[in-house]
């Protein structure tokens, strides 16, 4: 609810400013936003169905055991490795991450999972090699894996 309030306030504010500056541009922006929303809404609903099913099948006890606050370094490592290997689009991974936190996973573990998911791509490595060459592509992935670990640890300290 709190988050929704942030969005509503911010979007009303930016819309008003934008409208004041340029009416036509604002309407064009609304249209663009509406189009993007239309494109995403069905896949999004499918994800919600999938997450609801998964939450029913995977017992919360299991998530807490392997990724919860008490899981320590092992939970952190599982999250980092799974995040590096799998390829899950952002708008799917966020609902999953939110439900992980609700079930008792730590912020640090979720941060490392999200970051490796976004920055390290084992599955897409062959493609990346074609663009950058072997050395650079592997270097980038290793470096980003390290960066993701640092982000995870720092988030754990901050939050």
């Amino acid at each position: 609810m709190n988050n929704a309030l942030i969005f509503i306030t911010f979007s009303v504010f930016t819309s008003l400013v934008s409208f004041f500056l340029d009416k036509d541009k604002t309407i064009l922006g609304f249209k663009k936003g509406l189009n993007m929303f239309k494109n995403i809404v069905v896949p999004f609903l499918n994800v919600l169905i999938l997450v609801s099913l998964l939450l029913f099948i995977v017992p919360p006890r299991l998530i807490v055991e392997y990724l919860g606050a008490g899981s320590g370094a092992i939970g952190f490592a599982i999250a980092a490795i799974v995040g590096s290997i799998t390829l899950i689009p952002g708008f799917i991974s966020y609902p999953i991450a939110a439900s992980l936190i609700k079930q008792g996973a730590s912020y640090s573990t979720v941060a490392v999972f999200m970051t490796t998911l976004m920055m390290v791509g084992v599955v897409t490595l062959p493609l990346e090699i074609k663009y950058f060459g072997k050395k650079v592509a592997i270097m980038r992935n290793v470096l980003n894996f390290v960066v993701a670990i640092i982000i995870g640890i720092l988030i754990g300290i901050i939050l």
Partner: protein
Amino acid sequence: MTKKTFQKIKPYIWLLSFAVFSVVSFWFGFDPGKTIYRSFTESFVEMIIFIPFLFIIVGLFDVWFPKEKIEKYIGKDSGAKGILAVIILAMLQAGPLYGAFPVAYILFKKGASVRNIFIYLGAFSSLKIPMLGIEIGYLGLNFTLARTLVALPLFIATGYFMEWYLRNKKFEVYEIK
């Protein structure tokens, strides 16, 4: 059913099956089905109260900050301005990281520095505005702010490191046809 009508309903096949499943579950009092439906509506409400507003913001960003304008500032000697430009450019994109590789090629062709190309990839991976919006919606403003503020300096450091690592090597981004 003809092939044409199937093609038409194909995107909605999951939604339709789920609707049928839920109705049947409630009809016959199938408890797991009811639980799954409740958890679905809960997350649906959670989503629908912020996603439309998120897209208003994204749409407005798109018209006020056209990508073509920013691309002008990413040259070799662009310094801090160049770093800022690639970060903003990356934030305006959408899609998974492998969608950024062709853009990296274009940046390379346009004369972007090694450093800026890797800063771009870092920012693209996890600072895209639509994704930040979804992240705030699901994980909260505190989490998103903390993650962003921790990640940004690390991405810039990665760019500098790659520049140093490749200082005596020939670096090239290849085009894939």
